[in-house]
């Protein structure tokens, strides 16, 4: 697999293959969490993998609460760790 495509996750570049979700690409890079919970600040990542649980929420291009398991990765996308409910 040659990864030509990358998106930005916090301060690093994450390779992905077109068709993969942000969450899948992060998992393939051994990154497991990209959000902390509002009350206890616990780390969260993928759980159900199919858009049901909303554990995988992340900020994409400045918009918080995107499901990483569904949002398809794209070149130049800016993905940032989300704290709590994020900022708008």
């Amino acid at each position, binding site marked *: 697999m040659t990864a030509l495509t990358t998106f930005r996750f916090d301060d690093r570049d994450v390779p992905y293959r077109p068709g993969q979700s942000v969450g899948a690409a992060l998992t393939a890079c051994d990154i497991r969490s990209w959000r902390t919970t*509002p009350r206890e600040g616990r780390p969260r990542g993928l759980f159900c993998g199919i858009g049901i649980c909303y554990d995988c929420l992340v900020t994409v291009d400045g*918009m918080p609460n995107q499901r990483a398991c569904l949002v398809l990765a794209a070149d130049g996308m800016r993905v940032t760790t989300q704290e*709590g*409910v994020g*900022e*708008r």
Partner: protein
Amino acid sequence: MGRVVVIGAGIVGACCALYAARAGWEVVVVDREGVAAGTSSHGEGNLLVSDKGAGPELDLMLSSRRHWLALGDELGREGLELDEKGGLVVAASEAAADVWRAFATGQREVGVLAEEVDPVDLEPRIVDGLAVGVHYPQDLQVQPVLASQTILEAATRLGAVLRSGSPVVAAQRTASSSTWRLRLGDGTAVEADRVVNAAGPWGGEVSALLGGPVPVLPRRGFVLVTEPVGPIVRHKVYSADYVDNVGSSDAGLQTSCVVEGTRGGTILIGASRERVGYDRSMDPDVVRRLAAQAVALFPVLADVRILRTYRGFRPYCPDHLPVIGPDPRCPGLVHACGHEGAGVGLAPATGAFVAAMLSADHGRAPVEVDGVATAPFAPGRFGEAVPA
């Protein structure tokens, strides 16, 4: 003193139970489902003085507000999620602003605090260019389900008993005295010296089976709940045309939204008003309209998602006032229902009214309770009217 059976364990029934128990009655609360299973868990918890014009309902609300603050001190604000949040009414046009200014003048005369403000000072994310904002610091908020539960638990500590899971299906009054025998759906019976009809929107049906019918009808309302977003909206914010809708008797759909943030970080957008009986079906158009109005007030909400919508049935009387007081036709029966969209707000004052009336001689209710005239709420005002 004797035993009083309160029919209905919503917010109104819970308050009746507590105040009656405090007055020394032996209280049994009967609910066909459980605590706050009806409208009290399908609405919102705004305790508004701002939406009420000078008149009997505002008098009752101002009294109820003092009761709510006292309950907060006695039972703990946390258990009620009582918040002194304050309301903000905004008007888009100068014409609407003038109408509201006149309305607020009347409110101030009876002790409502209403201060003209620049909406942006209170709500930084509100839409630009509004003509006026009026801040109502006395508007409060509670969480109705928690409040019902907490208040009922306080009554229980004074000896009140909850019997949930079975409806009252029939009632008999002994010929000689005003003693009641209520039959429940599970075949058991409860005896009572007094009966309180706190069955919310079902108050009409319950009053009929008790032999003292009062006209209470359901008025449907949808509420939208958003994803958690944090403190975008700080007060209860609504636009000036809301009050016209509340007071309207039109059966058709009316929407004018109240937008507010909650502790959980979600934003509540309520509510529509529609007389469609107990029709529970989903109406996507109502959701669309409420969403559009919310976005018009807070443009930032355009990118916020709705997670949930639910609907409830307000207990509605033709003259938009609750029915509180002894039934002239049935000794021992006291009504406490029909609070429409303000039942949470008015519940404690209703409880105080009921407690005062339970011990009064039949048909001779006190003229005032807590300084509020009782006549405008008296069941007798409908004459011998039967529910439509």
